[in-house]
């Protein structure tokens, strides 16, 4: 699977780098939404891991921009959120913005790996 991670927190991208290192997935990271959109425009990814809370250009802005360019359905987008809003609200937001699913922070690494496998099998 070809994965793009978009997160401004280098500790998290480092962690993801370490975790994914031993896996069969291809992956790359950017630390801001604009670079992420550019990469999505130019490349074909299977999965985008998108952090919602980023300065200047947030995950939601990325989703809006991708939707405008009809790029949301090009790949599966999984949102990372630290928000404490209830599941039903996140779900409706995911649906509205054209994302695939969401994961709550703090991310459970074991769960993430399991989740990636599930998506891969789809």
């Amino acid at each position, binding site marked *: 699977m070809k994965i793009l991670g978009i997160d401004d*927190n280098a500790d*998290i991208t480092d*962690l993801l780098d370490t975790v994914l290192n*031993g896996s069969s997935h291809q992956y790359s990271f950017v630390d801001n939404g604009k670079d992420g959109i550019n990469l999505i425009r130019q490349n074909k990814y299977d999965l985008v891991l998108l952090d919602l809370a980023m300065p200047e250009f947030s995950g939601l802005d990325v989703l809006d921009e991708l939707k405008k360019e009809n790029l949301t359905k090009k790949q599966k987008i999984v949102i990372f959120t630290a*928000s404490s809003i209830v599941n039903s609200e996140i779900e409706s937001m995911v649906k509205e913005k054209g994302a695939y699913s969401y994961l709550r*922070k*703090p991310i459970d*690494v074991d769960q993430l790996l399991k989740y990636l496998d599930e998506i891969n099998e789809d």
Partner: protein
Amino acid sequence: MKINVKLIVLFSAIMVAVTATLGFLAFNTVEASVIDSELLDMQNIVHDKSNQIETLHSRASEDIVFAAQNPKFSDYFDLSDTKSGNIYNDDGVIQFTSEQRKLKSDLEDWIYHFQNKFTVDETCYIDRTGQQQGALILKAPVPDEHLSSTKKSEDYFEPSFEKDPGESYVQYPYVSPATKRWVFAYTTPIVTSSDGQKSGFYHFEMPIYVFQDVIKSDVGRMFVIDPEGFLIADSNYNYSNKPGSGYMGQPHEEYFPSIDSISDSEDFAGIVSGMNSLEKGQSKWATYDKNGEKYFVAYKKLPTFNWIIGYEVPRSQLLAGENDLFALQINLILLTSLMSAGGLVAIIMVSSRITHPIKILADSCKKQDVHNLKEIDLVTDDEINDVTKALNNMIKQVNEIGQMKEEFSSMVTHELKTPLTPILGWCQTLKNPKIMGELSEKQRNAIEKIQTNAKRLQQLIGDILDAEKLDMQKMKFDFQEINVTDFMNYLHKNLQRLMDAKEIKYINDTEPNLKLITDKNRLEQVLTNLVLNAVDFVPNKGLINIGAQDKGDSVLFFVKDNGVGIDKDKISNLFSKFYQVETSMTRSHGGTGLGLAICKGIIDGFHGKIWVESIVNKGSTFYFTIPKDSIRNNTEKN
């Protein structure tokens, strides 16, 4: 007391006081002038009566003087056979000559005519000697030894030839020898010869009751007193005046009442002494109290005998005839009532204008949702506007603070959560031998410690966030139908691992096939919290019993333990924020003290109830109910 009631009472009191004072002043002024004019009337009446009495005297005096100059008296006294005295027959009857008889008859006619002028039937004497001896009695012959009674004053008549002809004298009262009743008398000398010899006296008695007729009074009391203190006449006293009602030599005190019968007070005695010190013809007035009432007395000294004529009227009678004063009183009462009524209406209107906005203000404040304060829409032209403005300003600030608090806590929790992701992630990764390789036992223990504490931090942040949401009533629920039986089985299994350390017996008593619409995650949070508490408080090899039962309208959940129990006095605070039964317990499961408060908040959010039954050293059971229609209640509320 309400403001409008206060205002009404205050204004009413002021109005009544003001109108009453004004009314009292007006009434007093008018009353004083009325009394002045009434007093003047009284004095005029006194003058009138005194003039009448004086007229009586002067008429009688002038008439007897005139009578004494009648030539018939000279003729009578010139008759030679009468000069030596009367001639009596053998039976003691006076014998007259034919000439004498004719003169006598003429005189009798004249005297009769004279008496008619005064409508009295008293005797006229003609005293030839002036010594009360051998008087020629022209009518009603009587023994003549008592022409007068005891001397009573300077003006007492002393028949004397010293008196000049043409002068008359009024004699002090005595009992008439002719009619045996009290009279006073007028006397004048008769001069028959050109050398001025006084042959006799003409003497006319006037009954004393004539005064009674003069001083008759419908209002008040009129009286004539003499310097000795006798009431010579009194409109309130019934003097017996029939002929024969007195006897010769009768003492005055037996017939005339004393002045004390009017009043024996010192005040009145003072007035009487003032009366006596008046000059003749002088008049005055005074007041004194009798029987609790004020009496007005007008009085005047008569020229004759130093008598005083007095007229007293009580205040009530003085004003009784004053219809104007009565009308004024009625008008004042009417005016006061009208003003009070009008004022009352005005005050009610004014006070309602004042209190109405206050009520609106209070009502708007009562209706406020503390988590979403709305500005009050009220504009007035008084100080209440300032209050409204101040309140609105406060509301704005409170809302801003609420907003800031919300933003702050959301920011803080987010900032706190952010580092947790790499911490927990790295811990997990480190523990994964596929990624990081095998760790030594020491390294693994260290990672475990970091991970446990990071999780605890995660729990704390979650609790604080939940408490904050419950506080602000901003917690939202994901309602969906769940199978409670399955859910409880899952929970029983999921929490089983917590029981191992203490070898706790952990039982699930849930009815089969129990369904409920609720927020599954929040329900799990509540039950997990209660079970974690129970684990802390049960002894080793203790018992924890969870379960759920259908109660018709609701489902009852319980978490029972046989732990240390809770003191009764601590139960009421149990569900308050940051309260723990014993602080030492905090450490064992690391609660924030928010756990039970959050449970209560969530169950309240479900419109359910949560409570605890506990016996110390026997254990506690936490119960909570969730109504089956909690979702409907929640929808309605939102």
